[in-house]
C-alpha cells in the first residue's frame, strides 16, 4: 500500500490528502499545470482560486491561525513564487505553519533563464523555515511529508517545496507519511529541563511583584496551553499582559488581564512590565515593539523566558532562567512544581502590587475624546465590538492605526480568533486572511478591520470572496491617510505629511458593487450602529466605509527609543519640543 506507482502530480495530491489537507489556496500557471490537472480529477481536496499569490499565502495564514492546522499554498514558477515571498516572510515572522508548493521549470532548464524561471529556493531561503527543490520523483513524497512535519513542529513556520515540471510528470513510488523516517538533524526540544523548571518555580514562588507576559507561542502550542496558562494565573493571582500575537491566549474580560503590552499597549501593562520584580515570558520574543529602549527595559526583574526556539533566548534581552520547550508542557511542569512545593500566593505582597496596578489602571489610558460631529475611529471599533457580542467573531486586520485600535479595543476571550500581521507588518494582510478564516469557519462572522490605504493593497481578493460567496465583512476605518505614517510625521517630522495622504480614493461603496458585493457607508456618529447592524444582517461579503476623523492619533504610545515609563498617554501629554530623542528617530 505504501509502494504505489503514480506520477509526481498525483503524488502531490495524494500526499496532501495523507497530511489531512482539505483546502489549498492557489493560482495556476504553466509549471504547475500537471498538479492542476490532478486536482481536476478528484473531489476530496478543495482549491480556492485567489487573485494574487500574496493573497494565497495570507489566506493560508488566516486558515492556519484560526484552525491550528497547516495552511497550504500552490503557485506557479517565476512570478507565482516571487509574488508569494511577502506572504512567506509574514508567516516566518509570525510563526505560522505554511506549506507552499511552487512550480519550477523542468530540471534540464534550471539555470538557463527559462521562461518564468526564478531561483525560488535561493529567493525564499531567508524567508522560510526551510525549503526544498525536488529533483527526483522518488524523493517527492518523502520531501512533502517532511515539509509538513517541519512546518508544524517546533516553532512553526513556512516551508517551500519547489517542484520542477518534469518531476510532476515522472512516474515514481509513493510513500505514505508513516514510512518516512525523521531526519536526525531536526529534533525540536519540546520537553523542558526539570532543573530549569525548578528554578522558575522558585522565582515565581518568591516574587513580590510578578507579571506574566504571554505571546503567540501559547496559542501555537494549542488550546490546552491556553487553559494551563489561565490555570496558572488563577492559581497564583499574578497579573497578565499579552503581546499583539498573544491576544486571546488569556481572556481579555478577566480582571487579571492588563491589556496589550508594548508601543501602543496600556499604561498599566507597560508600567507593570517596567516595575515588576519577576517577569514570566511565555511564548513571546521581546520584540522591539514590546521592549522599547532595551537599556531601560524592566530594570529590576528576574526574567524567565519560556520558548520553543532556543535562538529567542538572550537575543534582545538578558534572561535569568531560560526554559526551552513547548509552552503547554512547560506550563504543566510549572503548575506541578508549584503544587509539589505547596505553593500559596503571598497575599500581602501581591495585594500591594495589585494596588499599584489599579492606580495605573485608573489612568484609563485607552480613553479618547468622543465627538457627536465626527466619527472617532476608536468609537467605530468600540461599537463594532459591542454590536457583535454573542456571535462567533473572528477579526483580521490590515496594518497601521486601525490595527492598533482594534488590538486595544476589541476584546478576545478565546485564542485563534485574532489574525494580524505582527512581525512583518504587512499592509494587505487582512482581506485575504479573512478569506482563509471564513473558508475554515463558514458560519462565523469574519471581519477585516481595515484602513483605506491597506485595503487597496490586496483589494483584488474581493473577487475571491465573491466567487466563493464568502460573507467576509471589510470594515474600513477611513481617515484618508496612511494614518500611522501621518501620526509619525506629525510627532517626528514637524507635521510634514510627505506622501501620506490617500489621494484619489475609490468610492468604496461602488467598488463593492463592482465586485458583486454590498457597500455601506457611515459619515456621522449616529449612523455607525445602523451600518454595523446592516453589515451583519447581509448574508454576503460587505465593504463598510466608515469616514472617521483624519487627525486622530493612536495613544497611548511609547515613542521609539523611550522606556516603558516614558509613555505618552494622549495629545495633552505630549512633551514640548517633540517626544522622540535623536536616538529614537533612527529607529523604526
Amino acid at each position, binding site marked *: 500500500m505504501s509502494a504505489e506507482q503514480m506520477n509526481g502530480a498525483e503524488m502531490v495530491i495524494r500526499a496532501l490528502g495523507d497530511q489531512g489537507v482539505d483546502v489549498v489556496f492557489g493560482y495556476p500557471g504553466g509549471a504547475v499545470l500537471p498538479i492542476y490537472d490532478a486536482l481536476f480529477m478528484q473531489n476530496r481536496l478543495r482549491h480556492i482560486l485567489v487573485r494574487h499569490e500574496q493573497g494565497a499565502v495570507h489566506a493560508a495564514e488566516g486558515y492556519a491561525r484560526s484552525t491550528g492546522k497547516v495552511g497550504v499554498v500552490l503557485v506557479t514558477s517565476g512570478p507565482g513564487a516571487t509574488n508569494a515571498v511577502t506572504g512567506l516572510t509574514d508567516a516566518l515572522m509570525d510563526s505560522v505553519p505554511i506549506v507552499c508548493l511552487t512550480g519550477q521549470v523542468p530540471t534540464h532548464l534550471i539555470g538557463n533563464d527559462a521562461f518564468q524561471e526564478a531561483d525560488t*529556493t*535561493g529567493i525564499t*531561503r*531567508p524567508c522560510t*523555515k*526551510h525549503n526544498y*527543490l525536488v529533483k527526483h520523483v522518488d524523493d517527492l513524497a518523502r520531501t512533502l511529508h517532511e515539509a509538513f512535519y*517541519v512546518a508544524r513542529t517546533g516553532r512553526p513556520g513556512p516551508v517551500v517545496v519547489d517542484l520542477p515540471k518534469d518531476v510532476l510528470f515522472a512516474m515514481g513510488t509513493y510513500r505514505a507519511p508513516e514510512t518516512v523516517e525523521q*531526519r*536526525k*538533524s*531536526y529534533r525540536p526540544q519540546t520537553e523542558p529541563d526539570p532543573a530549569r523548571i525548578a528554578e522558575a518555580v522558585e522565582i515565581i514562588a518568591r516574587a513580590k511583584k510578578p507579571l506574566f507576559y504571554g505571546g503567540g507561542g501559547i496559542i501555537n502550542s494549542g488550546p490546552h496551553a491556553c487553559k494551563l496558562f489561565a490555570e496558572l494565573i488563577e492559581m497564583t493571582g499574578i497579573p497578565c499582559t499579552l503581546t499583539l500575537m498573544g491576544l486571546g491566549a488569556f481572556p481579555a474580560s478577566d480582571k487579571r488581564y492588563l491589556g496589550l503590552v508594548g508601543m501602543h499597549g496600556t499604561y498599566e501593562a507597560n508600567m507593570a512590565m517596567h516595575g515588576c520584580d519577576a517577569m514570566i515570558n511565555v511564548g513571546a520574543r521581546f520584540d522591539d515593539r514590546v521592549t522599547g529602549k532595551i537599556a531601560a527595559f524592566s530594570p529590576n526583574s528576574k526574567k524567565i523566558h519560556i520558548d520553543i*526556539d*532556543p*535562538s529567542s*533566548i*538572550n*537575543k534582545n534581552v*538578558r534572561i535569568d532562567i531560560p526554559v526551552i520547550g513547548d509552552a503547554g508542557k512547560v506550563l504543566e511542569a510549572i503548575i506541578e512544581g508549584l503544587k509539589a512545593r505547596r505553593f500559596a500566593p503571598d497575599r500581602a505582597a501581591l495585594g500591594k502590587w495589585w494596588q499599584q496596578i489599579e492606580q495605573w489602571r485608573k489612568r484609563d489610558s485607552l480613553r479618547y475624546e468622543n465627538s457627536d460631529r465626527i466619527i472617532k475611529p476608536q468609537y467605530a471599533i468600540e461599537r463594532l465590538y459591542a454590536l457583535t457580542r454573542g456571535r462567533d467573531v473572528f477579526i483580521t486586520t490590515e496594518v497601521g492605526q486601525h490595527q492598533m485600535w482594534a488590538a486595544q479595543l476589541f476584546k478576545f476571550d478565546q485564542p485563534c480568533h485574532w489574525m494580524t500581521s505582527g512581525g512583518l507588518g504587512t499592509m494587505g494582510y487582512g482581506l485575504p486572511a479573512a478569506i482563509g478564516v471564513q473558508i475554515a469557519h463558514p458560519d462565523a462572522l469574519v471581519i477585516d478591520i481595515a484602513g483605506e490605504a491597506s485595503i487597496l493593497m490586496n483589494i483584488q481578493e474581493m473577487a475571491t470572496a465573491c466567487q466563493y460567496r464568502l460573507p467576509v465583512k471589510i470594515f474600513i476605518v477611513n481617515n484618508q491617510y496612511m494614518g500611522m505614517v501621518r501620526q509619525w510625521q506629525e510627532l517626528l517630522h514637524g507635521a510634514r505629511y510627505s506622501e501620506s495622504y490617500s489621494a484619489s480614493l475609490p468610492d468604496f461603496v461602488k467598488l463593492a458593487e463592482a465586485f458583486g458585493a454590498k457597500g455601506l457607508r457611515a459619515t456621522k456618529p449616529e449612523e455607525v450602529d445602523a451600518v454595523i447592524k446592516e453589515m451583519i444582517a447581509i448574508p454576503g461579503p460587505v465593504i463598510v466605509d466608515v469616514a472617521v476623523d483624519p487627525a486622530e492619533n493612536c495613544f497611548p504610545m511609547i515613542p521609539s527609543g523611550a522606556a516603558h515609563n516614558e509613555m505618552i498617554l494622549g495629545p495633552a501629554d505630549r512633551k514640548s519640543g517633540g517626544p522622540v530623542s535623536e536616538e529614537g528617530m533612527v529607529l523604526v
Partner: protein
Amino acid sequence: MSDKEKHTIAVLVDNEPGILARVVGLFSGRGYNIESLTVAEVDAENNLSRITIVTSGTPMIIEQIKAQLSRLVPVRVVHDLTEEGPAVERELVLIKMAGMGEKRIESLRLADIFRARVVDSTIESFVFEITGSAEKLNAFINLMKPLGLVDVSRTGVVAISRGAAKF
C-alpha cells in the same frame, strides 16, 4: 557592551545542496562576521559535512550565532571549540614566489625554518606549502612579501578538539 571575542565553531551538517548558502546567508542576513570558513564532506556514509567557521562578536552575539546555526534544519550539531576546551587549529597556505638570485635563496632558507615544503618549482619560481596556526602563517607570508611573493591561497582554519572526545 562587552568586548568582541574570536570563536572557532564547528558545524556538522547533512551534505545537501544549498546548505552552505544557508549558513553564509544566515551570517550576512543577520550581520554576523565571518573571518574564515571551510567546508568539506567528512563522512560519506552518513552524508555528513563539516563546516568550520571563525567568527567574532560579543558573547551575546556568539550565543546567537550558535543558536541560529542550530535552528537550520540540515544542521546536526554545533560545537564552539573555543569555549568547549582546548582545540587544535590549523590552516594550509600555498604561496607562490617569483624571482632569481639572492632573494630566491633567502626565501628557501626561511621556508626551511618555518617547515614549509616546496611543492612546485621552476627556474624562476617556487610554490611553498605550509600549515600551521593563522599567526604562524601570517608571519611567514609577511617575511615572503619582500622576497618576491606573487600569490597566496589559504584554506581558512580547520579545527578539532584535543583529547579522546568526539569534536
